[in-house]
């Protein structure tokens, strides 16, 4: 081994060893748990049962429900927050050029993102409340019937999605505005002189420049949307019924909170891991291509 490699290991191995213990070992453990039948009430007893847990997943309607909720939740929050974020960014960039307004805007846009999700969940749950919530007060002022935002099976999911979108869309806008500032001025000006209109400039110059940032943002938000436990648990606990129960909520309920079937929950965790890995591989390939 050459000097550089030795020095590399000297500097980096403590961190890498800790990360292996805390990240690799649990995943190996999860795989091994998922092939056993360990119950938290008797955690010392368990035997290997092959693929039984995975076969059980295939016949578990609640698992498919949670998979469906996870996919719907992540797709809608992703689409909403990126679309609204882009509209906001173009709006600010087009009409507000003074540094003062831009600084204030960027500061306010960061606020929802840095507030702890627990605070956000409780804040919105309070405002969504059917009796004392401020939104239903506004609706009553307009002469409309109160809406049970979180307790109606039809609306609960979209109500939670709204909160997630509120938290992310402004932050995404700040990222897009900041990357717009890095776009060189010359191509836009040259295009203007050649008679290009605003839409052409956006489509042929600005969007291609933003493409790498957009891919990065979509990727981050996608992965982030798959872990909405903090938001959903603190607003609806997966209810009413199971209409807002995502995969991580179901795995938690099944594995730790209520049923204690930690082996079965591990097989769900592995499914979650595989889904996330597919996204990462897909996105990083795309990333490298750009």
């Amino acid at each position: 081994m050459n000097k550089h490699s030795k020095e590399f290991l000297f500097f980096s191995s403590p961190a890498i060893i800790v990360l292996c213990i805390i990240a690799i070992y649990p995943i190996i453990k999860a795989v091994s748990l998922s092939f056993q039948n360990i119950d938290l009430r008797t955690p010392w007893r368990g035997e290997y049962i092959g693929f039984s847990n995975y076969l059980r997943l295939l016949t578990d309607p609640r698992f498919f429900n949670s998979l469906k909720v996870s996919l719907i939740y992540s797709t809608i929050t992703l689409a909403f927050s990126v679309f609204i974020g882009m509209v906001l960014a173009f709006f600010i960039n087009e009409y507000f050029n003074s540094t003062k307004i831009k600084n204030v805007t960027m500061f306010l846009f960061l606020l929802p993102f840095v507030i702890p999700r627990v605070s956000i969940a409780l804040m919105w749950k309070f405002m969504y409340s059917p009796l004392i919530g401020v939104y239903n007060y506004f609706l009553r002022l307009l002469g409309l019937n109160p809406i049970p935002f979180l307790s109606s099976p039809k609306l609960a999911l979209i109500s939670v999605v709204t909160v997630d979108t509120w938290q992310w869309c402004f932050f995404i806008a700040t990222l897009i505005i900041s990357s717009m500032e890095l776009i060189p001025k010359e191509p836009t000006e040259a295009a203007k002189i050649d008679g290009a209109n605003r839409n052409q400039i956006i489509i042929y110059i600005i969007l291609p420049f933003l493409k790498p940032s957009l891919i990065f943002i979509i990727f981050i938000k996608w992965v982030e949307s798959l872990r909405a436990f903090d938001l959903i648990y603190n607003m609806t606990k997966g209810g009413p019924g199971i209409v807002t129960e995502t995969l991580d909520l179901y795995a938690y309920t099944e594995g730790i909170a209520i049923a204690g079937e930690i082996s079965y929950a591990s097989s769900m965790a592995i499914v979650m891991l595989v889904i996330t890995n597919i996204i990462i591989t897909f996105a990083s390939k795309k990333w490298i291509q750009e």
Partner: protein
Amino acid sequence: MDSRIGRKFKKLILYVILIVIFFIILFPIYWMISSSFKFKKDLLTPTPKFVFKPTLSNYITVINRGRLKDGLVNSLVVVPLSLLIGIILGVPAAYAFARLRFKYKNGLRFWILSLRFLPPVAVIIPLYMIWLSFRLLDTYFALIFTYSLISLPIIILLMNEYIKTLPIEIEEAAMVDGGSRFQVFYSITLPNLIPPLLSTVTFAFMMLWNEFFLAFVLTVEKVTLPVAVAAFAAIGVEIPWAEVCASASLLMIPPLILVAIFRKALISFFLQQI
């Protein structure tokens, strides 16, 4: 004349839209903070009061609740200690990734990057079992160690990017003069890293301070502040909204102060990775 009025009108409309956007951001935050200063009779009413006599009673109730105080203390123990682990182990690793050649370096770096996107549920279920079997569930040790999964990758990746931008010549000169690699790192590179390290740690602090899922699963008594706050909203049939608003407001004070100070640094962090 007409077109001037038209332009003014357009400007007015644009500002109205901007103010509506600001309102959408600020109203929920304002509403919770203002509610936290309300007496119960002003808070628990179908017709919300926009003008009210403020009180600190909710905060006093909340702070005297043992569980919330415990949560605050535990957060103030767990978060700084896991940041410390992140710094002590992460900064040298970041230096190695930036300055030294190693056959598997790129693979390792991609692996560390991918850890930031690991779904927490995939590690928390086995970790629960692991800490349980070592009888370490619900201890500071387990939580601090688990949190290094968040702090270490952030510090390694961000500091690595920063070290790469430093000029390498001074380090090389010191090496030629007979300094060992560690001496060079410790006395030449490290002093230059204090300012970026400060903002990186701020960012990592916010991630850990806000973290809920891992702490929620791994603790029973040693709850962190977010878990203690969430527990407030889960007791009894009637949610004690006054106390919930006060405790949730307390929880968000540190990140709000930090974002005011480090706004620019935070945005550039994310842009760096693009």
